[in-house]
């Protein structure tokens, strides 16, 4: 880490670049949350290998989930763009990218709630229902946290708290957001695609 210490005249206030303590803290959060989702998905597959495809109460439709996946991926792209703009001191683009990320995250949540309403089963009716609602519910909770993080970072961006050197919070929120997207890809693949692949 010493080689990363920048040569500055004045003492820095807060972290510089993105490899701050907060960044490493986020990495450990991601590790624990990744383990959580790995075991939730393992539980799904465990039920599946025992009960077979008849266990799936209703093959999930892709009409809402596929566009929703695209929306989440797009939001990741915008957040990534915002982060790279922050590194180049383009404040306006940075705020716009974060704002679009927040909006797309909220749209994802809305569509996800729509999809939940359409399900003929509940969290308590079958083990499939439990698995589905717990896994997607945990993911939605993570999306909510991610949206709040992005909103906070957006607010701070608008207040001019960041520049090209001091932008660790943006990177921390962004890496969490990418992680949430990646988890969604795994959930989407598991719940929505594997029933069709077999």
């Amino acid at each position: 880490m010493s080689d990363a210490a920048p040569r500055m005249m004045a003492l820095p206030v807060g972290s510089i670049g993105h490899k701050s303590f907060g960044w490493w803290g986020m990495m450990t959060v991601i590790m624990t949350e990744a383990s959580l989702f790995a075991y939730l998905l393992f539980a799904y597959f465990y039920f599946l290998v025992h009960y077979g495809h008849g266990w799936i109460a209703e093959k999930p439709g892709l009409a809402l989930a596929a566009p929703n996946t695209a929306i989440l991926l797009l939001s990741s792209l915008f957040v990534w763009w915002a982060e790279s703009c922050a590194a180049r001191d383009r404040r306006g683009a940075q705020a716009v990218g974060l704002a679009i990320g927040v909006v797309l995250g909220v749209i994802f949540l809305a569509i996800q709630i729509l999809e939940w309403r359409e399900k003929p089963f509940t969290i308590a009716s079958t083990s499939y229902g439990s698995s589905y609602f717990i896994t997607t519910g945990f993911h939605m909770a993570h999306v909510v946290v991610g949206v709040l993080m992005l909103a906070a970072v957006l607010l701070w961006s608008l207040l001019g708290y960041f520049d090209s050197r001091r932008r660790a919070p943006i990177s921390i929120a962004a890496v969490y957001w990418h992680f949430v997207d990646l988890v969604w890809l795994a959930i989407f693949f598991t719940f929505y695609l594997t029933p069709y692949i077999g």
Partner: protein
Amino acid sequence: MRKLTSLLCASACLLTPGVAQAHVALGPEQHHTPYAALPLLLLALAYARGQRRNALWPRIGFLLGIFLTWLATLSPVAAFSERLFSTHMAQHLVLMLICAPLLVAAQTTKAAARALAPALERTPLRRLVALADLPLTPVVIWLAFTCLFVIWHLPGLYAAALRDETVHALEHASFFLSAYAFWSVVMAPQSRRTLGYGARLFFIVSAALISGLPGALIALSSRPLYAIDPQAAARLGLTPLEDQQLAGLVMWIPGGFAYIAAALALLLAWLRQSESLARRRQRGDGRALFAVALLSLTLAACGETAPQIRGAQANPVTGGDPRKGAEAIAAIGCGACHTIPGVNGAVGLVGPPLDRMGRRIYIAGLLRNTPENMEAWLQDPQKIVPGGVMPDMGISAEQSRDISAYLYTLR
């Protein structure tokens, strides 16, 4: 990473047909055509041409890797193994966890790229290689390796691979290439651009955890998930479910051992590295100490600051006894006018203080501080500074030797 990408592409051009064609060549009669091993042979030739270092071990590793690849994909053993689910799983593991790291350790891509570079320069393949300059960061390679491993074990895709030889070839090629990239990250020489040992350990252990999950599922399943040839299983006295459980266990336990072995090897390398670093640092410390000693010796020789040495020289010159000198100082009463450390009552403020006399440059403001001058001054100060404050105290030559011996101990 750019370099790794082009190397991977070069190796893919060579190796993939070798691994993949094995299955295309395996028709319904389950025996391969003679030319199926040709790509492997070509790779061996390219390696022989490109391998520059005269090291023995990489060559042995390469030959072993090629032989095991042949054994796992082309040999009669392979043809037999694919009828049983468990042996088929073992075949995949050999390909991913033994052949790939062996070929990585033998620096196959480097050698092959060196042999092929002139040819590649002249063909449109060069553009292909440039096009395929993907951002192959360790994260991407990790994701590709674990995702491919998990996805191909979905029963539907596995069945598709068994039905269609092209899909099967794709399966094996993707297994092999992702494994090759995976082990390239793990075994890359340490540098600023590659992962450190800690990150590599995490890279391996996390992949091992994920790769264990499908194996656990397959082993724990209570019903057959895969289309298993019941006759082939029965020939070994296994039911299809037992064959499947065995396959899951093979994937879970021996597969896990390969990762653990790699992690332990990395730990060992890490410990060695830190040990040699520590040793170097220690040697550096020793060198620094030596330098300080040398410096002080040099300073001493210059006569600037080395009272110890001066004192040592003073004694033979004065030939006096410091203890007697101290007694003489007390008896004569020098302390009435001088402040002299170590002598009782010597706190006079008339003359200059004599503390650190061994380090002072001048005596009486005009004589260089040498033993001879000191003795002369002590015996006959009025001759040197007539009318000065320092009176003649009737000090004998012997007393002056003892007194100056004492004064030179004050540093």
